[in-house]
């Protein structure tokens, strides 16, 4: 059994005037480590105790400024750098629309940081093992009495002198408050292994429950009814049709809207002889042809149709289009090759429309002429 240690000498007063006088007297007597306990803040007590103004406001100011500036910078970054996106035709940095969120975050960060530091640094809470807790003194000041407590660790502390001083102020009672060191040190530790194990257990339980709900329960009947709807989906089997295919083949002879079949399938010679370029080589047509050529043709044939793309050497080399063979081909043959493909070259019929193919033919002709210019072209 430890001997009780003296924490402080306390006195209780019945009136607010009494406690103000007591605070002034104790301060004038030169004590530093004392405190006043009142059920509500008593006006004028800060002056009586000689306390300086609370510095809490500076924390609020700093936190609010940082929060507000931080979120404003973040939103600006989002709109100007991370994902520039035109919204309603406004400039990327349309700052008036950033104000509401900036204001809310300023308030939120200022308030949370203020209260957090108030509790953690100014009060040093939570602390439920202070020597004054559970004393008749604390029960009295908690209700309607005003108390002063001069601590034993004050440099001037002398039990007899302090008791005499407090008695001279006409209090209701004067009493020492003692504490048991062993009891005081018996507190819950944040890094107690049992506590950490409890935290880990709770975390595990919550994660498992969340995972189970989101990834298992929602995919079980009856919660899966939106996934398993009563309708046909492609690639599924069915017993409704003899061929078991849910995706029905098109009826023979079906033609898509706006589609004209290509009549020269596998007939390169006829195509070359019969087909004529329906487009005039205007600037517009050449621009379209250039665009399509650069998109679909240049990856193999090169930007200038010399067959010099960066694929050279990695596949059977794509041919140049400036060869005599291609130059003497009729337009229809070039068109036919784009449509049907040739050797390793696939068909581009689905990527390039008919009009665009003819435009490409014009553009190829223009390239050929540029690289084999006649005398008359020089002017």
């Amino acid at each position, binding site marked *: 059994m430890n001997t009780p240690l003296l924490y402080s000498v306390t006195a209780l007063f019945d009136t*607010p*005037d009494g406690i*103000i006088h007591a*605070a002034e007297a104790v301060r004038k007597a030169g004590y530093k480590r004392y*405190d*006043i*306990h*009142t*059920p*509500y*803040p*008593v*006006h*004028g*007590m*800060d*002056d009586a*105790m000689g*306390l300086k103004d*609370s510095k*809490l*406001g500076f924390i609020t100011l700093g936190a609010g400024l940082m929060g507000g500036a931080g979120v404003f910078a973040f939103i600006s970054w*989002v*709109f100007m750098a991370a*994902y520039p996106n035109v*919204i*309603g035709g*406004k400039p990327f940095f349309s700052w008036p*629309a*950033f104000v*509401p*969120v900036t*204001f*809310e*975050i300023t*308030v*939120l960060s200022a*308030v*949370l940081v*203020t*209260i957090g530091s*108030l*509790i953690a640094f*100014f*009060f040093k*809470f*939570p*602390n*439920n093992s*202070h020597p004054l*807790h559970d004393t008749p003194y*604390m*029960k009295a*000041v*908690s*209700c*309607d009495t005003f108390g002063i407590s001069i601590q034993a660790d004050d440099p001037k502390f002398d039990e007899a002198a302090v008791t005499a001083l407090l008695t001279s102020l006409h209090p209701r009672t004067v009493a020492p408050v003692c504490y048991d060191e062993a009891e005081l040190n018996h507190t819950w530790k944040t890094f107690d292994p049992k506590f950490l194990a409890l935290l880990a257990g709770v975390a595990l339980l919550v994660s498992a429950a969340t995972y189970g709900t*989101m990834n298992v329960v929602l995919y079980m009947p009856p*919660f899966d009814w*939106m996934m398993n709807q009563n309708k046909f989906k492609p690639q599924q089997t069915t017993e409704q049709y003899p061929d078991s295919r849910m995706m029905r083949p098109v009826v023979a002879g079906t033609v898509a809207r706006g589609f004209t079949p290509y009549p020269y399938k596998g007939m390169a010679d006829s195509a070359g002889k019969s087909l004529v370029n329906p487009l005039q080589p205007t600037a517009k047509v050449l621009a379209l042809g250039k665009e399509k050529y650069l998109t679909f043709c240049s990856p193999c044939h090169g930007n200038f149709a010399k067959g010099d793309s960066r694929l050279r050497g990695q596949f059977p080399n794509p041919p140049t289009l400036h060869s005599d063979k291609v130059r003497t081909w009729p337009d229809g043959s070039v068109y036919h090759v784009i449509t049907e493909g040739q050797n390793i070259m696939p068909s581009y019929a689905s990527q390039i429309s008919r009009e665009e193919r003819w435009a490409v033919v014009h553009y190829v002709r223009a390239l050929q002429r540029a690289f084999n210019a006649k005398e008359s072209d020089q002017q």
Partner: protein
Amino acid sequence: MSNSAIDYTLEHPAVAGTPSAASIDEVITAPIDSKPSRGWWIGLAITGSMLGIGVLSVSWLFYKGTGVWGVNQPVGWGFDIVNFVFWVGIGHAGTLISAILFLLRQKWRTGIARFAEAMTIFAVMCALIFPLIHTGRPWLAAVYLLPYPNQHGIWVNFTSPLLWDVFAVSTYFTVSFVFWYIGLIPDFAMLRDRTKSKIKKIAYSIFSLGWRHSNRHWQHYEKAYLILAGFSTPLVLSVHTIVSFDFAVSVIPGWHTTIFPPYFVAGAVFSGFAMVQNVLVVTRKFFGLEHIITLNHLENMNKVMLLTGSIVGYAYAMEFFIAWYSGNPLEQFVFLNRALGPYAWAYWTMVSCNVIFPQLFWIKKVRTNIIGMFIIGVIVNIGMWFERFVIVVTSLSRDFLPSSWGHYMPTAIDFGVFIGSIGLFFTLVLLFVRVLPVVSMSEIKAVLPGAQPDHH
């Protein structure tokens, strides 16, 4: 002082008579320490059943999808946004009482501030239900509500009023909760030092954080309270302003008006005071708090309702004037349609409840009559609910193209969710009056006669 004239500089006393600090503790902790009465259980049974209806409706909503609601083209916003705005508005009275009246040094606020703050928190909780469930699958909604780094590499749209709403309402809830809890800390310490039950003692110790009523703490505490009040004041104005932006920033006729922010804030305070007054009238009677929540408190609240109700009435008139003055045929049609169209019954309910009945508060006899003020409070809340209904539904159901007009009718599930939110609110109020002190003991003691030193 002249002997005949009334001295308007004198404040009404914050409490009636001269109760002692100890008797204040007795009265306020009585509901916490005693067994609940039969009336309380009956009340809880009613509100619990309403809450149950809400839970069933929301479960059905989650199972079947938002198709069970009455919303469809062209009225895509129905009961969900009506109820959201209604509940957020209810909350505003609490912050006004706890923050703005604190900054204005109105001592009479101490008796009702705690209760009003609690109602703020409960009302915002009810409000938050609606934006959450209207997504249909709220557990997947974080993607478009909250900015977090995701695999799409895209952020939420910080320039959208709906996103502002998320920030405003969640900030409002957090700050209100912190404000409320900070006010509760000294009271938790008082409860801790009073209670004889061991379990309660542990609970109160945890929640009091070890508060010791030290003046060195009170000093920072009072500063923090002032800072919180200072932040809550612009915050509460910003919240309903931003809620009104949901409408005002769009281009729908009847919504696209600059009067919306002040008009919405006044309406919010109006309905909030009506709700607080209603609940306080019942509570003070039920728990014998007539000398702490005095008739003077209720009268002051009725005066605030008279003021804000008149502002709302002015806004209704001004909307019509501007519609005519703007020369915009679409605006003009919308307002004529409100007053004479298919929802005229809702419009005239709104006008009579919000503009005509509260004018009775000019008469002192009505203002100080408990039954009279209670009935007017209920009427005001009905009227303010209809205000939101009128704004949302009439504008959407008949906008630009007559070929796309429609008619909105809520379904039973719509009503079920709304009833559930009312049940949640009053269930929380009933639980609150049993487990927490409904009046701030430390604040009320500080304004008792003789509580402060005579000089200094």
